[in-house]
């Protein structure tokens, strides 16, 4: 078999490897190679291996999950479609019975939330830690027959007449040929870039999230969050982030808390603020400080989150390849869902591969069934609904939306609840007036409200 190497352009090729134009010889052939053992890649590998395909699952980390982070919420529905009753064996932290949303002022908060014990049975979502969960999930794919190839970096795709026919890894004799390559190499997708299907993300298309895992005794966590046994609670918060577009989170694990913030990279750049400074500021906020005090920071991590939404999504399939998960910008930033979309996209890619295998057709036309399946799924529909959100955030209203409004809302709440003899009608008028002034007038406030409405309702 004669194959020509196409350099990815992102990674240096060491001297020992063939160079561009060199001929290479490959022997063992797979039905499918999956690049990346995160939720998307593992779901694809699991689906295909169960469907009888000969699959290799390649991961650059020492083991799946070693290099992966997320905020920390796993949902039931999409994983259940793949592995029924997975929660009975998967390493999960706590079953979430309460979700809170805090709008932070300087040292105050307006809070919303919903607690309902119905979320326990059937469970709706859990907190989790990727280092444990991904290992377990990839183990399921291995049990189904996927061949694990870990601590291995895919440096480029092998192309033959414009078709993807396999991957090149950084190991000796490292070429692996396959009929289908499923690209699930995460937000920075080097392979997506090498294919030319997406460019380097613009700073407004990605958020940088930083997260700390903070250890506290189990009982302390349960007391502070009003929880029993394996019950869990999540808190999302906005505001108090130097006027940048960002969302913070505080999740309860068994004996740790996950505390983090994700901030739009363009705002970080414009404000010249480092992400950990944002996190440090949040840790000093009295609402947060009291929940984490006495805890010991066990881990610190940072990761990019693709938040460009539908308009940043690349083509999803071509001759011999499909792309899933973060690599395809599949994140619903509004609902902090990513793992969900990743798992479903992986499953859909896997199902498409099984059908393509049965027909022996791995062309772009055959694999485009995957694109159609994504369009018919909640992935596309949800991202379509929030299509305008990215534009709204990118238009430079961060300071207004994420600092001035939250503060004004806190001020208004303070005034409304303060009993000082001023009639309520006067107070209400003052509160609305305050919000209007912050927005820069009635007209601007209305326009912003309309834009916001449209952004949230595609």
């Amino acid at each position, binding site marked *: 078999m004669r194959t020509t190497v196409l350099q990815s352009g992102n990674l240096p090729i060491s001297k020992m490897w063939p160079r561009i134009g060199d001929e290479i010889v490959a*022997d*063992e052939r797979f039905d499918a190679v999956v690049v990346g053992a995160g939720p998307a890649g593992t779901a694809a590998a699991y689906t295909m291996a169960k469907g009888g395909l000969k699959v290799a699952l390649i991961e650059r980390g020492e083991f799946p999950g070693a290099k992966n982070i997320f905020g920390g919420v796993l949902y039931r529905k999409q994983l259940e479609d793949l592995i029924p009753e997975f929660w009975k064996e998967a390493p999960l932290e706590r079953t979430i019975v309460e979700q809170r949303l805090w709008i932070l002022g300087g040292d105050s908060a307006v809070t919303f939330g919903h607690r309902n014990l119905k979320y326990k049975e059937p469970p709706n979502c859990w907190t989790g830690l990727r280092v444990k969960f991904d290992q377990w999930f990839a183990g399921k794919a291995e049990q189904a027959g996927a*061949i*694990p*190839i870990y601590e*291995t970096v895919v440096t480029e795709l092998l192309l033959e007449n414009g078709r993807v026919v396999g991957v090149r890894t950084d*190991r*000796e004799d490292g*070429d*692996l040929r396959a009929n289908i390559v499923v690209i699930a190499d995460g937000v920075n997708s080097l392979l997506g870039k090498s294919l030319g299907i997406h460019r380097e993300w613009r700073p407004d298309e990605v958020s940088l999230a930083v997260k700390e895992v903070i250890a506290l005794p189990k009982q302390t966590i349960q007391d502070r969050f009003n929880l029993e046994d394996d019950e869990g609670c999540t808190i999302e918060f906005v505001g108090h982030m130097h006027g940048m577009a960002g969302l913070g989170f505080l999740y309860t694990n068994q004996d740790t808390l996950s505390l983090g913030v994700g901030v739009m990279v363009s705002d970080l750049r414009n404000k010249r603020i480092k992400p950990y400074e944002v996190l440090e500021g949040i840790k000093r906020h009295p609402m947060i400080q009291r929940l984490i005090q006495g805890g010991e920071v066990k881990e610190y991590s940072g990761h990019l989150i693709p938040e460009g939404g539908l308009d940043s999504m690349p083509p999803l399939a071509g001759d011999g390849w499909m792309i899933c998960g973060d690599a395809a910008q599949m994140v619903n930033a509004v609902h902090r869902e990513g793992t969900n979309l990743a798992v479903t996209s992986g499953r859909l890619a896997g199902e498409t591969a099984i059908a393509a295998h049965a027909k022996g057709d791995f062309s772009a036309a055959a694999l485009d069934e995957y694109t159609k399946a994504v369009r018919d799924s909640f992935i596309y529909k949800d991202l379509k609904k929030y299509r305008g959100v990215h534009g709204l955030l990118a238009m430079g209203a961060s300071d207004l939306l994420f600092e001035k409004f939250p503060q004004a809302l806190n001020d208004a709440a303070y005034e409304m609840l303060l009993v000082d003899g001023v009639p309520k009608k006067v107070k209400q008028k003052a509160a609305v007036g305050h919000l209007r002034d912050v927005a820069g007038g009635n007209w601007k406030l209305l326009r912003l409200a309309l834009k916001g409405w449209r952004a949230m309702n595609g």
Partner: protein
Amino acid sequence: MLHLVVCMKQVPDSREIRIDPKTNTLVRQGVPAIVNYFDLHALEEALRVKDEHGARVTVISMGPPSAEKALRQCVSMGADEGILVSDRAFAGADTLATSYVLAMAIQKAEDEWGPVDIVFCGKQTLDGDTGQVGPGVACRLDIDQLTYVEKVESLDPVKREIIVHRHLEDGVERVKARLPVLITALAELNRPRRAGLPGVLRAARYQPIVWTTNDFPNMDRSKIGLRGSPTIVSKTWVPEPKQVNTEFIEGDDPAVTAQELLGRLYATDLPQKLGWA
């Protein structure tokens, strides 16, 4: 063809080890298990012999079923076969019992695949640190032992001669020996290779061979496991960190503080000890 055996132990990664302050024992829970560092060098040397002269490389490990992962790693690097000697009856073994079992396993490997020419061991394990198992195996096999080897100068499979450099406390000893021998490897011996992709693929599908007590009809039950281990741990403790007096020299001008620091240092006997004076 030469038959080489590598003795390997799966150990907790010592970089992530902690000591339980209450029991004074190692906390193994949650600590990743790895191939003992020195055993990787032993394996690498065996693989180099295989690359140069052609050889069969058998890796033998005594340990729990989870050690299969470590054996797979050895197979991915190029070992031909991985043997897991595993049985509850082997649990609690000290170096005496361990070397007895390993020697019997090596003899069984000889029965299966022919006489063994070189046994490679790491100089010691990261968790036990005794350095006794390699020599113990050599004694039981009644073969010569070359411990603390930092270099294999030459190997002549026809004359059956090997010349190695042994790193001793007071120098290096250049030794010639006749096969079969047992070698214990230092880290200086070589740089372990990264497995190639074909090796990784083979390892992913490879099922290590498991030998239990049933596979050793002649094994003396009184010499294995806890029963065969005369070592008694009478006490363990964590050494107190040494008390060090720390002084901060405050000041805004680095030149002044540096001068002050140097003045204090030269007032001690440190410069003399370091040969500055």
